[in-house]
Every structure is written in C-alpha cells, then in structure tokens.
C-alpha cells in the first residue's frame, strides 16, 4: 500500500514498523542512550525504537522531548523514520534537529507492527 502524507523532515528511509496506537512521550518515556521505551502503561514498554520506523498518532509530554530525539540520533539509537497522524511541536522539532525523516497526515491505523515500511519524502509505502 502507498500512502501520501506531508513531509515534516524530508528524507528516505526503510525499516520495520514499530506501532503505538496511543501518543508517545519521549522525555522520561524513551531511554536516550538505548532507545528503549520506559513509559509505564505504554504498549511499547521494553521495546526499542532503534532503527525502526516509529509509527504513532502524535507526541505528548514535555517539550524537552525534542532533545531526547536528538540524543537518540547522536547515540545511534534513533528510529530511522517517524510516521504520525498529526505531528506537533515536540516531534517536529525533534525530527528536524535529529535529522530523522518524518511524515504526518497518514492514517497510522493501516500500518502493522513489523511490516516493512519505506519512506520517501511525503510517501509511506508498506
């Protein structure tokens, strides 16, 4: 399937999807050194975002979360791409400063965890 969204940070990436149906918090929610999800109650608890196409509706929590994405990238533990329903400030700023390809305005419910996903600009193919 091929979905056309809106590019927040343009780029190309390919990887296995990691899907959360609920919003994600990066500050305090993801370990900036390892990429492991630590937020209690998150359906991704204990899984790593490293190298994955991270799919979730939108970000939540502290704006410091943008810096967590940056740190993940510096540590080689960042997702290879981000796909959102509606991107907000925390994730948009984080994706830009960390240079992670990011697309929004995509129906994230269509993407299954572990599916092979290809991102190119505003296009999401799986």
């Amino acid at each position, binding site marked *: 399937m091929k979905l056309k969204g*809106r590019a*927040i*940070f343009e780029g190309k990436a390919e990887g296995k999807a990691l899907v959360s149906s609920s919003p994600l918090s990066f500050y305090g929610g993801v370990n*900036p050194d390892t990429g492991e999800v630590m937020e209690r109650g998150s359906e991704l608890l204990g899984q790593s975002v490293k190298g994955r196409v991270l799919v979730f509706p939108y970000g939540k929590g*502290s*704006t*410091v979360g*943008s*810096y*967590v994405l*940056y*740190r993940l990238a*510096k540590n080689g533990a960042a997702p290879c791409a981000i796909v959102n329903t509606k*991107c*907000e*400030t*925390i994730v*948009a*700023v984080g994706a*830009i*400063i960390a240079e992670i390809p990011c697309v*929004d305005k995509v129906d994230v419910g269509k993407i299954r965890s572990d599916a092979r996903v290809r991102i190119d600009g505003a296009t999401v193919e799986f």
Partner: protein
Amino acid sequence: MHLTREEEEMLAGEQGHATQKAMQILVALGRIYDAEKLVRVSSVQVSGVSYKNLGDAGLEFLSELASDGKARVKTTLNPAGMNLTDWESQGIASRFAEKQLKVIDAYEKLGVEISCTCTPYLAGNEPGFGEHIAWGESSAVAYANSVIGARTNREGGPSALAASLTGRTPLYGLHIRGNRIPTVAVNVEAHLRLPEDFAAMGYFVGKAVKDGIPYFRGVGLATLEDLKTLSAALASSGGVAMFHIEGLTPESGLGARSLEALTFTEKELAETGSILNDEGTPDFVSVGCPHCSLTELATLAKLLSGRQAKREFWICCSREVKRQADEAGYSRQIEESGAKFALDTCMVVAPVEELGFKVVATNSAKACHYLRNAGLKVRFMPLEQCVEEATRSA
C-alpha cells in the same frame, strides 16, 4: 507558506548552519499550524536552561548551534539549575555545576543575555502592547499576552531559540487577533485578598479550562504580584497561554460574547488550598516562583527583620531585581536573617530532590505542581506564613 527572499536564503543554508536549522524548525511549525508566513519578532525569551531538564542531549544541540549561530533580536534566558557564581553554597554537586556552566557558555556564545529569570518583564525584556514576540517559559507567556498585550505562542526551548536566530516566528495562534478572544468565562465570587488567592484560583481554573482563554469577571483590582502568580498557576495546572480580566487587562474588550461560565467561590478557593497541601513538616522553604518582584523583597525584608531562619530558606529572584533591592537596603536585611538569595535559579529547576529535602513550603501553586512531579511533598501557604515556617523553632 510564503517566504521572503531572505528567508529562502536562510532555509537554503546561505546564512550558516544554525540559521538553516532554525529556519527549518520555523517552516515546519508554520506548515503544521497553517501559518501564511513568518512575522518579525522584537523579543525572545528562551526556556530550556537547567541542565536538570536539558541533559547531555540539550547541551550537545546548543553547542552545535553555537558554532555559527547568533541572536538577531533581544534574547533573554530562563533560570538555570543553580546560582551561576555561588553554586557551592547551594550544595550543588560539581558534576552538575560543570555541565550547567557549559550550557550557559553555549548561550553566551549565541549572543543570549544570561539573565536567568522567569520574569524577563521585570528585568529589562519589556515588549510593548501588540508587539510580536517569541517566548518560552509558560508563566511569562501568559503574563506577556494577558497583562502586557504582546503576542506570543507558548514556545518550547528550540522554537524560541529558532526565533532568536532568525528574528522571526510563524504567524499563527496568538499572533492573530481573532485567536485571542476568550473561550470561557469565570465568575469570581470568592474574595481574593492575597496573591496566593490568585494562585489558587489560577490552579483551579487552569485545570478546568486546559488550553482555553479564560475571561475573569468580578476580580476588581489586582497587583503585579497577583497577576504574576495567577499567570504561573494557570499555565502549570493547564496549558493557558492567555487570559483576560474584565476592566483590567488591555484586551479584555475582546470578550463581550456570551460564554459558558465557571464559578469560583470561597468553597473552590478553600478546596484548592487543601489540594495543594500534603502531610509533613517542611524542611525547606522557598518563595519566588515566579521570581520575586522588588515589592515582594521589600515585604520579605520587613517580615524577616530581627528574625533568624531556622531552616533552609530560598528567596528566588533575578540578578536585576536583587540589584534594585541592594540599592534599597532590602538585601542586607534579608541576608542578615540567614535566608539565602537563590539568584539565576529557583526551587523548580534546581535539583532540589538531590539536596536531601523532603517537604517544601512555598507560596507558589506552580512550584507545588512541579515539585510534586519531582517526588517531593509540598505545603502551600501565603508569603507571611512561609516566613513564619522558615523562622519557627523546631
């Protein structure tokens, strides 16, 4: 979104790496929030200064930007995690201090004024009515929009810095007059006598209206201190970026339409006060969230005269207001009591939980909110009682 030729150049990297990153951030935000164009700003307040919140990630990013970025407009800074010149006496660990000073170095290199206060409007960053600005620090955002009538969205650290490095911000949200009209009325029936009553009201209303724009009726008069603490409370329990007070704030005339209304009576005032009080005897007392005004320091000097602090007592304020208090003679009176000025920082952004304190007494609803999140117990009380608590024999 429409960009001018100069803005296109910035985006293409022709004015350096930091300017390009900043412009990418602004353009992305502009697209997300459907801004038509960018607008020039006259003032920026940058949040994200304490190493406690930034961590190594934030420090690395700031250092990267500082390699070729420069502030283009007046830019001031939020509080840091410690007193920048006398952190030892605060008990701050040297590892933390070292990192904190690196953060400050990066901001200095970026041309940001090392003001380290959450009340820039008391320390020389004073925009006028109708000016477009880009401020972080949620309490200052609410104050600037509501009390001054300047226009800003609630910026995060990187987006405020991006505005500083380009002199621009996307034109959306509270930059547009039509988005500044109230969304909910608050009929105030409680008698508000003290700034702490305004704080409690803000805490109650913020929780109820989330990111709405409340319109307060029946408040009558309010002091700068009342409005400062109201702004902080509204922005901590909720996401309020602007409010109006009938007959008082400069854009309250925008609010004539019929609105759904909340009521704030003596009952809500008392209940909010008790919600903000945990069990326990305070081992730490702190006032100045937001940072104290000169009037508050005058009151503290009077209250502390001839008394001794029996427990750790922090009075948080900016260096600028402290300088004014020095001239007026208040500082000497305060310091003679053994109370400590916490300059450049405050009880919320300093690593208080690592200093071994368990129960904090404060007159700030905002501080109660964030200290609880950090795992401390809190006691909310008026300024005068905070002084009693600090000077009471064990």
